[in-house]
């Protein structure tokens, strides 16, 4: 795929589609490409952290820093792959997989008590004290059969979310 050109060939579209496991239609990929080019101001082939932060709705999101680590510098193919977890056609495992990756900031494949605490901190900020957060988390983990020292794996996450499913969808505007 050309890094400086803003022309997307049919071959490119199909390649991207395969890479995201057909979770987006070809029109959606074309729309996403337009959006990608809009955000990538100087056509470098990837969107920098700065350019993501220029979207106020994104910058104001409490999890923006964590997501930024995951999307910073992605080329278009990986950008689409990242967003594919938000497609209506994505499976529960794929969606939970993304959530797991957000919690597992050091990428070691397991989520500790502290990892969850950090995300809670990002979300609740000054509305809860650290102590309150720890108390709540301890209690909730105990009731689910885990302890403070437990490490949660991806399978544990899938088990936790399995019962009621997960609604995490974004619609790609198609002209």
């Amino acid at each position: 795929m050309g890094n400086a050109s803003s022309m997307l060939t049919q071959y490119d579209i199909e390649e991207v589609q395969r890479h995201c496991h057909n979770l987006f239609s070809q029109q959606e990929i074309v729309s996403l490409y337009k959006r990608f080019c809009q955000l990538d101001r100087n056509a470098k082939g990837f969107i920098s952290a700065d350019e993501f932060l220029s979207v106020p709705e994104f910058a104001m999101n409490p999890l923006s820093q964590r997501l930024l680590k995951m999307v910073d510098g992605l080329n278009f193919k990986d950008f689409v792959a990242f967003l594919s977890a938000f497609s209506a056609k994505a499976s529960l495992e794929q969606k939970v997989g993304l959530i797991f990756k957000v919690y597992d900031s050091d990428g070691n494949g397991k989520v500790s008590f502290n990892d969850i605490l950090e995300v809670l901190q990002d979300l609740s900020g000054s509305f809860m004290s650290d102590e309150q957060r720890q108390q709540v988390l301890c209690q909730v983990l105990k009731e689910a059969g885990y302890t403070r020292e437990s490490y949660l794996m991806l399978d544990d996450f899938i088990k936790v979310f399995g019962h009621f499913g997960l609604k995490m969808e974004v619609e790609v505007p198609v002209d």
Partner: protein
Amino acid sequence: MSNPGKLITSSSELDLDRPNIEDYLPSGSSIQEPHGKLRLRDLLDISPTLTEAAGAIVDDSFTRCFKSNPPEPWNWNIYLFPLWCCGVLFRYGILFPSRVLVLTIGWIIFLSSYIPVHFLLKGHDKLRKKLERSLVELICSFFVASWTGVVKYHGPRPSMRPKQVFVANHTSMIDFIILEQMTAFSVIMQKHPGWVGLLQSTILESLGCIWFNRSESKDREIVAKKLREHVQGADNNPLLIFPEGTCVNNHYTVMFKKGAFELGCTVCPIAIKYNKIFVDAFWNSRKQSFTMHLLQLMTSWAVVCDVWVRDIISVRAGLKKVPWDGYLKYSRPSPKHRERK
């Protein structure tokens, strides 16, 4: 942008301006109250927040305000294309030169009247100001004519009265010229470089215009003071303010900066809506300089717009409201806002 990646703390003004976010959320998605016992699943479920973030990545209302919306191509079939080519020839070959001629004549007349008036009548301020005002209105009419501007004014003509300001939506610098043709306003503008800056320091100075510099924070107090002095004076021209603070693409209005409303005067709204069929008057200052923008206007068929005075902005002119501060175009939201969320 001077500080890539760093958050520039915006002033507390933005805090006070925070709109009621419930007004802007789509119906049905109000912030939910938790019910029942808190389970591990509920605690770990960050999907709403992630969905919002992904939604913003995919599309966001702020970027849409500043997007130039290209016109739909209508000239692509075999019947219309040659017509379009003739149109291009006509516009560039005939219209453009005659417009340049009109504009040149206008400038000659203007300068040959303005310079003598300005220097010879130094002692008679009242008369001088009156003549200068009419001359500025004249050159603006020439400008408007040079784009074949068809401007329909609705509502009463603004008059010179103290303690009154006018606010208008902003699409391009030509907004100022169109309104100036109607009445010689004093306006508050960003100081520009180049030939525009020269015009600002000489001619517009005589109208009593006020300059500011976006990047200087101390500037704000000085400007606020100047504004207050201006509206108190009975002799000064009516003051025109563009409260969005920046050019918006004429499909939306962004949140107004509140300076215009804090002066303790009556505020009269003016709305400008351009007819896109003729030309898209949005000046995307990132994409083109003002000179290019003017040239583009002069090679189009016409600039057609409606100006409404004293009607409610945004509802009347068919523009949509967006809860974003226009200055976010230049800086990032402060960390304070993220915490609130």
